[in-house]
């Protein structure tokens, strides 16, 4: 009994510590004061400002959000395509070649962001490519694809190879068998790979920072960085953080409930 109480208390204390800054930001997103920690009465003005873009540099914040989402979407889509095709290839490789390719696939995951960022920066300088949207997306594909490969590969090993062969024996062309048999089997891995890639891209700061060039391209991360370095956080970032926090929370709750349902229906069989 005592043990359980101590354990519970410890967990909740740690969670309290972990969430204190986020809750703090959320509370102060409902007041107008430009200085954080100074409560000047309840107000939703920061929220309306955020959505109408009615603040200093408001349009640049909105375009940073737009860039972030667009880059993440494009990078995740390409990574999923490239990673799935690659996983099918890797699955059919053997021995040393397979190990070699898997080792290559691990490199971007082991490398800290700053190494990926600096090395790609040097690549674009070396090749004389002017940096901007395209280089940022290419860089994001580079560090996202390994996660797609790792999400799809287990689905290939779990899959019964005879199903695919059977489809071919029954007269399906390879492309039909691919669409009707292989892809449906791989879909869960592709979906979680896509989600992983998408969130990795959303979260990225260092790689974007080094590959965005000097054309003034900002994602949310680089916007926040520049903003904070200018001294003081734009107050409208508080409601934005609160909203992102809520969206992530809701998404994770949905995913969790869905997973629990799936595992329950499986154990019920």
């Amino acid at each position, binding site marked *: 009994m005592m043990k359980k109480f101590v354990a519970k208390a410890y*967990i909740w204390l740690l*969670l309290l510590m972990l969430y204190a800054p986020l809750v703090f930001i959320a509370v102060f997103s409902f007041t107008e004061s430009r200085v*954080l920690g100074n409560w000047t009465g309840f107000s939703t003005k920061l929220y309306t400002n955020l959505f109408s873009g009615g603040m200093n540099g408001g349009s640049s914040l909105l375009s940073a959000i737009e860039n972030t989402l667009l880059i993440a979407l494009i990078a995740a889509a390409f990574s999923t395509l490239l990673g799935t095709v690659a996983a*099918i290839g890797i*699955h059919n490789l053997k021995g040393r070649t397979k190990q070699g390719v898997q080792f290559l696939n691990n490199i971007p995951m082991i*490398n800290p962001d700053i190494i990926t960022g600096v090395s790609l920066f040097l690549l674009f300088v070396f090749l004389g490519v002017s940096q901007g949207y395209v280089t940022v997306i290419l860089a994001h594909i580079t560090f996202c694809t390994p996660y797609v490969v790792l999400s799809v590969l287990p689905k290939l090993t779990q899959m019964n190879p005879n199903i695919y062969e059977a489809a071919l024996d029954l007269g399906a062309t390879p492309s039909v068998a691919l669409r009707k048999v292989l892809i449906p089997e791989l879909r869960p891995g592709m979906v979680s790979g896509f989600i992983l890639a998408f969130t990795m891209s959303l979260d990225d700061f260092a790689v974007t920072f*080094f590959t965005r060039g000097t054309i003034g391209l900002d994602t949310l*991360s680089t916007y926040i960085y520049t903003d904070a*370095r200018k001294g003081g*956080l734009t107050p409208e970032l508080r409601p934005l953080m609160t909203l992102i926090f809520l969206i992530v929370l809701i998404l994770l709750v949905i995913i969790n409930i869905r997973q629990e349902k799936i595992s329950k229906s499986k154990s019920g069989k």
Partner: protein
Amino acid sequence: MIKRSYWSLPYVIFMMVFVVLPLVLIVMYALQDGSGHFTLANVTRFFTDSDSLSTFALSIEVAIENSLICILLGYPAAWILANRELNRSAVTVMLFIMPMWINALMRTLATAELFNMLGFTLGKGTLLFGMVYDYIPFMIYPIYNTLTKMDKSYAEAAEDLGATPWKVFWKVTVPLSMPGVMSGVLMVFMPTVSTFAISEFLTNNKIKLFGTIIQENINSSMWNYGAALAFIMLVIIGITSLFNDSTQESAEGGLI
């Protein structure tokens, strides 16, 4: 019909251009002077420059302290979360993982602002606290993962053979969960050394970590010295990942 194994070819080519070549370029730029001649000056400059060396030493120190605190605070949490008698809810586990999904810069900024309001002077103390905030989920998650996947019969066997719960914990559970701890350290240690924005926010630019000086050199067009610093970091990564090879998969698999 094309052989299926060839399907890996586009990705291999892609990686050659965007992973291997860039790393080669780091080494190349590190070993060149501004006009493209071979030189070791950039590397030797690091070892003779007391500023760079002390920043490097401080980064390693902070990274070790951060990893240790994360293990100290995170291991008990992971153990409690993985224990079926103490925790049955998936929601608490999710709450610990969730911060990993929120932009690190935002969380760090929120932490720094909270410190500011509470009247703490930003410095090494707040840097360490903030780092622990940022990285503890990355320690808890892999440990939790190995603990839940662990075969319970080992612990039961030890119990049956008369070991006290304390002994079971230290002699069975802890050794078996070491892969989780190692991948946790991997996810905490190198990112701490290489971070730049986080340390700037948490100390108001007072304390520089290794990542910051790489960034400063690259951004002020001192590519060769910046590359040399990145090269030194690469060497360390190579060394740390050598004895971490086998633990990689447990850390990355199944984040969702």
